[in-house]
């Protein structure tokens, strides 16, 4: 029928409407899948090069110590502030809920477990991912587009060892330490917020909060942040060192470093929480 209609239209000399081109969904999807696997492939090759460079001498101790300072000392104020804020928020929220359900005596333990097992590690990871991830991504990207990384390589220095391995190791070492700092600040401000409303000595708070607690309850959640450090370091260095395209590329590398590191950090947390529950019951 429609064919007949078209024939008639053509016969009448009227313009036959052109068929709309089929959407290129198939091609687009195929490219998306290819890019996805290509990205992981390049990430794997990058991680292998860094791992090999990290375990073969000469070791870049001076740069490593400088990075410990960059990642650790310089992130400390922000992490401490974030931890302190989390402590106050948890204190206010849980106090209200526990009072409502008549379980006010559980307040210290709830605060301690919430801060140390859940919020402290995640908040530290996300804060460091934002500050350090963006910093490393932008710094290395800027070095890449201005040929400084090529200049390092041309000077017979392995950039994977000097730039990537040192930063990644610094993130791995400093994340658990920063988490301990965030936890301490969170507990302190959480207790302080509670003490303002209802008298409670710090000694009493700690004793009640850690009553019956074992190392297994607190050490794995704290030290799992070393994995967060690995993720932040690897993603930020990878994004930075593969940058192309001038200032826009630098901006994109910084953004992608933070977004991807935060995303993978949260996904890793899901796996790590289950892993810790199974291995350290």
């Amino acid at each position, binding site marked *: 029928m429609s064919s007949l209609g078209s024939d008639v239209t053509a016969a009448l000399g009227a313009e036959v409407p052109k068929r709309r081109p089929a959407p290129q969904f198939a091609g687009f999807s195929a490219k998306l899948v290819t890019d996805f696997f290509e990205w992981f492939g390049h990430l794997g090759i990058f991680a292998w090069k860094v791992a090999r460079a990290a375990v073969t001498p000469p070791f870049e101790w001076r740069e490593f110590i400088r990075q410990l300072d960059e990642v650790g000392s310089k992130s400390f104020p922000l992490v401490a502030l974030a931890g302190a804020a989390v402590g106050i928020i948890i204190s206010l929220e849980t106090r209200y809920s526990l009072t409502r359900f008549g379980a006010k005596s559980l307040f210290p333990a709830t605060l301690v477990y919430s801060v140390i097992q859940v919020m402290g590690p995640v908040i530290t990871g996300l804060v460091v991912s934002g500050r350090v991830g963006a910093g490393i991504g932008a710094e290395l990207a800027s070095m890449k587009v201005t040929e400084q990384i*090529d200049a390092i390589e041309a000077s017979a*220095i*392995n950039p994977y060892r000097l730039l990537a391995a040192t930063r990644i190791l610094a993130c791995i070492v400093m994340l658990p330490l920063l988490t301990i700092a965030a936890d301490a600040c969170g507990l302190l401000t959480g207790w302080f917020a509670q003490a303002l409303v209802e008298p409670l000595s710090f000694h009493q708070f700690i004793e009640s909060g850690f009553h019956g607690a074992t190392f297994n309850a607190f050490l794995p959640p704290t030290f799992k942040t070393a994995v967060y450090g690995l993720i932040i370091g690897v993603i930020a260095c990878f994004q930075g060192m593969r940058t192309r395209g001038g200032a826009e590329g630098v901006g994109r590398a910084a953004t992608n470093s933070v977004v991807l590191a935060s995303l993978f950090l949260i996904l890793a947390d899901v796996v790590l929480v289950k892993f810790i529950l199974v291995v350290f019951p």
Partner: protein
Amino acid sequence: MNDARDKMATAHDNTMKQREAEADGNAPVVSVESVHKSFGTHKVLNGINLSVNRGETLAVLGRSGTGKSVLLRLIIGLTQPDSGSIRVGGDDLAGLTLDQLGAIRKKMGFLFQHAALYDSLTVAENVAFPLDHHRRDMSKSDKDDLVRRLLAEVGIEDALERMPSDISGGMQKRVGLARALALEPEILLLDEPTAGLDPISSREIDELILKLQRERQMASIVVTHDLFSARSIASHLALLDQGNVVVQGQFEDLQQSDIGFVKEFLKQS
């Protein structure tokens, strides 16, 4: 299987020939043989052959985008060729790991087109950077003396503590040159050493390169499209067009060439 064996045998023969020639003292320090390089569908180098001996300076000329800088990146191993062979001091760069390449790169100094100075380090720290990593046995005072001497050699000894962003383009090139000379290389690769500089600074850089060549007897490859500069510093020239060496030889050989592109290039330069 036989093909692979033949290739290995040929590579071994070439290495042996190179070693024998080296023993005779007339081997090319850098040789580029049938090198092809493409980026995607864009063919940049199309089987080019070049060689430089000790004490010689080769100027590679050509229009923008003809692969001159790519050629230098291939020689120092920052980019890999699609096919062909690149030998530096008799060693084939193909298939080397980053650390093996590092040993060869120590023999080379590279001046990048935009100097590529480390922007978070001072001028002195930039020049000391290769020394800090490869001359760990050197005392700090010896390193400081060497850095001062290198900066004096390139004429900017008073800029020691300044940051790269605080100095002019010409001074940045001089710092880049001092950094390239820090490990006393046998081969110097210069990517557009006078690009973006005023005529006076360009001639100063040319004179500096000539002085260094006289004093250090290095093999140099200079990529440029400044014909005046190339003529004054190079012992021979190669003109690139569409990924091929169109003409190679003395400046007079270029002048006598009947090739249209060569005539046009000389006329416009």
